C-alpha cells in the first residue's frame, strides 16, 4: 500500500519546521552557501531560549549585509569591520540583552581586525559569529586575509603567493589568547553532524552571554561556490580537503 501525499503532510508526520525567527524572504545567498544554515541555527537557538525580545544582532558588510532581511529580530547594520564596536555600544547600554555580530572574513579579519581584537580583549559580553570562506564573496571573489596559499581569487589570479601576500590569518587562535574571550571554537555547517555540533556551540555561546562570561567567538568554516568556482558538493569536498587542515575544526578555548 502506497502512502498518499495527504498522509505525509499530516501534522503528526512533521519532522522539521522552519523557525519562526527566519522570515519568508528568499535568501540572497548562492545555492549551497553555508550562510543559510548558519542563520537558521542561530535563529533556532534564540527561539528555543525564548529570548527574541532581548536579542539584538549586528549585520556586517559582505554577503550577509542583508542578514536583517532574513532574521526576524531587531538588528543593526554596521560599517565594514565595525560590528564588534557597534555591538560594544549596544551591550554597554543594554547590559542584560543578548548581542551578537555576524561577520565574514574580510569584515572581521581585515578591515575590522582592531575592533575584533579589542572587543575580545575588553571581554564584551557578546557573541561574535565569524563565517570564514577564505574569500570576499559579495564584491566578487577577491583575496581575503584567510585565503589559502596558492588559492586563486580575482585579486590573486595566479594563486596566493605567501612571499608577496603573506599568510592566511587564523583569527580564532589569535582571539583565544585574549583573557576577555571565554569561548573560542571553530565549526562547520556542511554535514548534519557538523550542523548539530555548531548548534551546540551556538547554544553555549548564548548561555555564556546570559551568565555574563565575556566574548564567545564562533568561527564557522564555510564555502563559497561562486567565489571558488565549484559546484556545491565539490565545494564542500574542497573545503574538507584544503580548508580544514589550515583551519582545524574543534574547540580552541572554553
Amino acid at each position, binding site marked *: 500500500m502506497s502512502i498518499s501525499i495527504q498522509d505525509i503532510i499530516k501534522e503528526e508526520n512533521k519532522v522539521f519546521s522552519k523557525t519562526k525567527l527566519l522570515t519568508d524572504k528568499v535568501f540572497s545567498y548562492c545555492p549551497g552557501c553555508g550562510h543559510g544554515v548558519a542563520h537558521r541555527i542561530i535563529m533556532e537557538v534564540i527561539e528555543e531560549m525564548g*529570548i*527574541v*525580545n*532581548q*536579542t*539584538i544582532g*549586528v*549585520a556586517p558588510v559582505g554577503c550577509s*549585509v*542583508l542578514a*536583517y532581511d532574513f*532574521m*526576524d*529580530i*531587531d*538588528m*543593526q*547594520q*554596521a*560599517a565594514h569591520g*565595525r560590528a564588534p*564596536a*557597534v*555591538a*560594544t*555600544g*549596544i*551591550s*554597554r*547600554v*543594554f547590559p542584560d*540583552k543578548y548581542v551578537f555580530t555576524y561577520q565574514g572574513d574580510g569584515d572581521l579579519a581585515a578591515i575590522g581586525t*582592531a*575592533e575584533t*581584537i*579589542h572587543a575580545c580583549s575588553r571581554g564584551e559580553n557578546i557573541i561574535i559569529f565569524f563565517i570564514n570562506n577564505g574569500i570576499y564573496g559579495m564584491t566578487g571573489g577577491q583575496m581575503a586575509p584567510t585565503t589559502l596559499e596558492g588559492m586563486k581569487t580575482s585579486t590573486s589570479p595566479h594563486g596566493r603567493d605567501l612571499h608577496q601576500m603573506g599568510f592566511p590569518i587564523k583569527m580564532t587562535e589569535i582571539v583565544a589568547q585574549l583573557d576577555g574571550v571565554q569561548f573560542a571554537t571553530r565549526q562547520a555547517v556542511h554535514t548534519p553532524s557538523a550542523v548539530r555540533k555548531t548548534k551546540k556551540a551556538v547554544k553555549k555561546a548564548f548561555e555564556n552571554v546570559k551568565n555574563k562570561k565575556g566574548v564567545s567567538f564562533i568561527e564557522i568554516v564555510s564555502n563559497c561556490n561562486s567565489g571558488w568556482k565549484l559546484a556545491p558538493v565539490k565545494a564542500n569536498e574542497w573545503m574538507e580537503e584544503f580548508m580544514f587542515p589550515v583551519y582545524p575544526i574543534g574547540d580552541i578555548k572554553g
Partner: protein
Amino acid sequence: MGELRLMKGNEAIAEAAIRCGCDAYFGYPITPQSEILEYLTLQNPEKTTGMVVLQAESEIAAINMVYGAAACGKKALTSSSSPGISLKQEGISYIAGAELPAVIVNVVRGGPGLGTIQPSQSDYFQSVKGGGHGDYKLIVLAPNSVQEQYDFVKLGFDLAFKYRNPVLILSDGAIGQMMEKVQISDFTPRWTEEEIVQMTGSWATHGKPETRKHNIVTSLNLQPEPQEEHNHHLQRKYKEIEDNELRYEKFFCEDAEYVFVAYGTSSRLCQKAIQLGREKGLKLGLLRPITLFPFPKKQIKMATKKAKAFLAVEMSAGQMVEDVQLAVKGKRPVKHFGRYGGMIPMPDEILEAMEELIAKVEKKEAKKAQKKAKKKAEKEAKKQKN
C-alpha cells in the same frame, strides 16, 4: 537653578553630559580635548546616573559604539579633536544615513595632518559641507563660551532626537581649554527603559516584542529608487531644520557700517575689536552664527542694507567666508581675515584688518563720487555749450 562654577570648557562638556541624562560616552584621548574623557572617568557617573563611560581603542571604534548605542534609542556622546574627527567621518556618515540621534564634539586644533595642538577653526568645511561621503548634513552648533559649551550638550541631544540627526558641537582648543564661570543645571534623570521604548520604539533596536515588526537600523538600499527617496526625505528634513533651528547673535549691528562675521573664539575676539574700533569712532558690528548649519544666510543678506562691507574672521585660511559671500551675493565687498595653524589673532590685528577694508571701501567710494561729480560737471558744461 544650580550652582555657579569655574570650569574648563572640556570639563563643562563632560559635566553637562552627566547632568542632562546622557546614557553613554565613548571616546579616545587626543589633545586638546582629553579632559572630557579624564573628567568622566574620574566622576564615574555609572555609579550615580548610570551613564556608561568607555575608552575605545580608536576614534573609529568610538563613533561606531555611538552608532550601536544610539540605534538602541540611547543618548550617546563622543568627542575628539580634528585628526580624530577625520577618522570618525565614516561613522558620522552612517549615523546620518541611518538617521540616528547622537552628539559629537570637535575641539578643533590646527591642521592639516597632525598639525598642531593649538586652537583652530579650520574644520568648518568638514563640519558643514559633509565631511564623510554622501549627501548629508549635521546640525552644527558653535559655542563661544564655556557656558555655551555646557548648554549645547543638552540642546544637542534635544535637536538630535527631535530630528533623528547627528549634532556636531564645533568648539576649538581655546574654548576647550579656557576657564570661565558656568551656571550648572540640575540633574535630568536618564530615560527609563519604558520611556526609551515609548520615545524610540518605532525605530530603535530594543529586542523585538511580539507586538511589533522587527526594527532594523541600516543605511543600505541596494536599489537606487528607494535610496533616492531616502535622500529626498533627508533633504526635506534638512530644509525643516533650516526653517526652524537657525540660531545667531547680533552685536552692535543696529548702526554698524562694517560688519564682522565670526563664530566661536573668533567672535569673542571680534567683540573686543569692535570695542576698540568704536572708541575710535568706527561703526563696527558683529553677526555671529551660533548654528553653522543652518547658516544665517538671510540675516547676512538683510545686513547688506546698512553694512558697506563684511569681514569674515576665522582661525582658518578662509572657509566660512565662502558662505558669507554666497549670502551677500556680490552686493557688498566680503573679505577674510584669519590666523591659522594654531595661531590666534589679537583683537588689534583684527581691527587693523577691518580698517584696511574700510580704507579700501572709502577710497572706492571717493573715486566713485569723484567720477560722478566729474560726469555731472561734464554734463553741465555740455548743457551750457548748447
